[in-house]
């Protein structure tokens, strides 16, 4: 076919697509191919998802300067000044042509789950025994979990969810649940995994320095830079090909003293797992009943402050919206919506006769807490999410699901697992 004929055919295909021409069999077949091939890409994004993504982007936007076009003269002077500074700064700090931070961040990005194996060893041999840690990161859902093993014994397991952090201390058989890392005696540095911390620093506004050294890059991430305080930095070595971290060393430098390194984290493997292979990973995995202690950020024990009945109109105004089963479920009408206030946060209870729907984030209702973190928890994948089954403190069936803004649990004494599973799938936003 000549080029001219091709053009004519292409123009006719365009007219068939526009509905201006019916076309012959050949053209209609091509249109069908195009329409079918693009079917999977024709999905709608709910407005609430767009708003959620926008809300997620806002903190990152605040860290970025937004400049309008400046007058040309000012721009010329500005450019000259920037070039002069850049010449000095880049000579010592940056590597021309390589966006090391961007590539390092991209190496740990993506929608799948990262499984990282770490070995934690002392910089000065004999200071403390070496241990290993297995870390799972789900950036999309804001989940992190790691298990620390010392001499083949699991000593600690930490689970970070969007609104709470739970830590299982095996020796004491206690699970501490806090609304933030400040609820833990060890503070935040110990509750955030070093790789996760490094990833957050890359994603944030930290001034990361990078330099090439053989087949690796050495990145320096400031952790604490307050004047007259101990200066803390993370020194991360990353592979120059894959941009994945290889070692992380934390250093402390007291004012007027030399910097000292205490521990070294050697990253022995980084794997990317499809979500379907990580079902059930993001829950604590103790094998027997453990005592659950909930704490506030000021490390106080959980205390109930009060209970308020909400009208449907009041409940509709809550942001983020509550998840509910509609005005009735299985013939049971919604009998009441209560806001229960604890010193660690608010939980909402929607009562449908014998069944109850809980909505919560920073505080887990005490009725659910003992077994929510218990050994009897069973996760089951649903689409890209996971439903967790367990029993309430009084032996009722519970099915719980996490959304980006809340956890919601259906609690029912009379229903079987299939029923609560069905119910949790019917949960929808109360607008």
């Amino acid at each position, binding site marked *: 076919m000549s080029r001219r004929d091709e053009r004519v055919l292409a123009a006719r295909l*365009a007219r068939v697509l*526009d509905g201006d021409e019916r076309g012959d069999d050949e053209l209609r077949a091509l249109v069908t191919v195009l329409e079918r091939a693009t079917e*999977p890409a024709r999905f709608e994004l709910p407005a609430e998802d767009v708003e959620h993504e926008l809300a997620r982007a806002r903190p990152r936007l605040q860290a970025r300067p937004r400049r309008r076009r400046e007058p040309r003269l000012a721009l010329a002077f500005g450019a000259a000044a920037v070039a002069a500074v850049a010449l000095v700064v880049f000579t010592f700090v940056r590597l021309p042509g390589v966006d090391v931070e961007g590539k390092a961040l991209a190496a740990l990005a993506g929608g799948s789950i990262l499984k990282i194996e770490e070995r934690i060893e002392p910089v000065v041999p004999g200071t403390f025994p070496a241990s290993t840690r297995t870390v799972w990161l789900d950036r999309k859902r804001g989940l992190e979990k790691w298990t620390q093993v010392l001499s083949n014994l699991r000593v600690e397991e930490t689970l970070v969810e969007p609104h709470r952090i739970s830590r299982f201390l095996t020796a004491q058989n206690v699970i501490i649940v806090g609304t933030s890392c400040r609820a833990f005696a060890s503070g935040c540095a110990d509750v955030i995994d070093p790789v996760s911390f490094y990833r957050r620093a890359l994603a944030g506004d930290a001034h990361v320095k990078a330099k090439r050294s053989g087949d690796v890059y050495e990145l320096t991430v400031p952790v604490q830079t307050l004047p007259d305080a101990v200066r803390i930095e993370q020194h991360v070595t990353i592979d120059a090909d894959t941009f994945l971290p290889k070692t992380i060393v934390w250093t402390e430098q007291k004012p007027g003293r030399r910097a000292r390194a205490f521990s070294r984290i050697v990253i022995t493997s980084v794997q990317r797992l499809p979500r379907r292979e990580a079902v059930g990973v993001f829950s604590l995995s103790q094998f027997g009943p453990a005592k659950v202690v909930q704490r506030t950020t000021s490390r106080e024990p959980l205390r109930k402050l009060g209970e308020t009945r909400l009208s449907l109109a009041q409940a509709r105004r809550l942001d983020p919206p509550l998840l509910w089963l509609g005005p009735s479920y299985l013939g049971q009408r919604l009998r009441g919506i209560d806001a229960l206030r604890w010193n660690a946060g608010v939980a909402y209870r929607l009562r449908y006769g014998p069944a109850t729907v809980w909505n919560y984030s920073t505080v887990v209702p005490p009725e659910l807490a003992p077994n929510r973190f218990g050994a009897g928890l069973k996760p089951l994948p649903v689409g*890209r999410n996971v439903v967790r089954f367990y029993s309430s403190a009084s032996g009722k069936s519970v099915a719980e699901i996490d959304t980006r803004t809340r956890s919601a649990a259906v609690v029912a004494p009379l229903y079987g697992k299939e029923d609560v599973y069905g119910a949790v799938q019917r949960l929808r936003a109360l607008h």
Partner: protein
Amino acid sequence: MGEDLGGEQRFRREQSDFEGLFRAHYPEIVRYLSVRLGSRDEAADLAADVFLEAFTRVPRLRWRGKPVLAWLYRVAANMAADALKKRARELPAAEPPVAATVSDPADRLADRVALARALETLPPDYQLVVHLRLVEGYPFAEVARLTGRSVGACEMLMLRSARRLRTVLEQEGVRVPA
């Protein structure tokens, strides 16, 4: 002339209203990237990065007769290319290209996967034209404006895309009735 004035007004408005720009175009950038990357999750993440870049850069763009959306697509295409290059040289184990739903019968699901993969096999410039016309429904004149090509060139890319897709689907054994 009136068209251009309207276009320029919209360009200026989108330069100064980031949230409006995000709400108007985030979904279509996610749809576009989901085809390029074969994963909706990764597409959502990368689309957020595109808008982060837009937040800094868009206020400094000059009006050259093209909407801000053209810039968004160009940045999205570049970022997708980088992500694919990185993916090719690093870790294995990507997620399946299409999210399976429980109700999909096996053969329909296989077809869906084959269809999504077929689109992924197209060169980036073909994909963009197909996406803008078939997924987003822009007329060819607008597709031309967004891609910086002539209408005739876009029509030609569409014809070649259709032929390639048909070949790929035939090889995959997917029946596409006319």
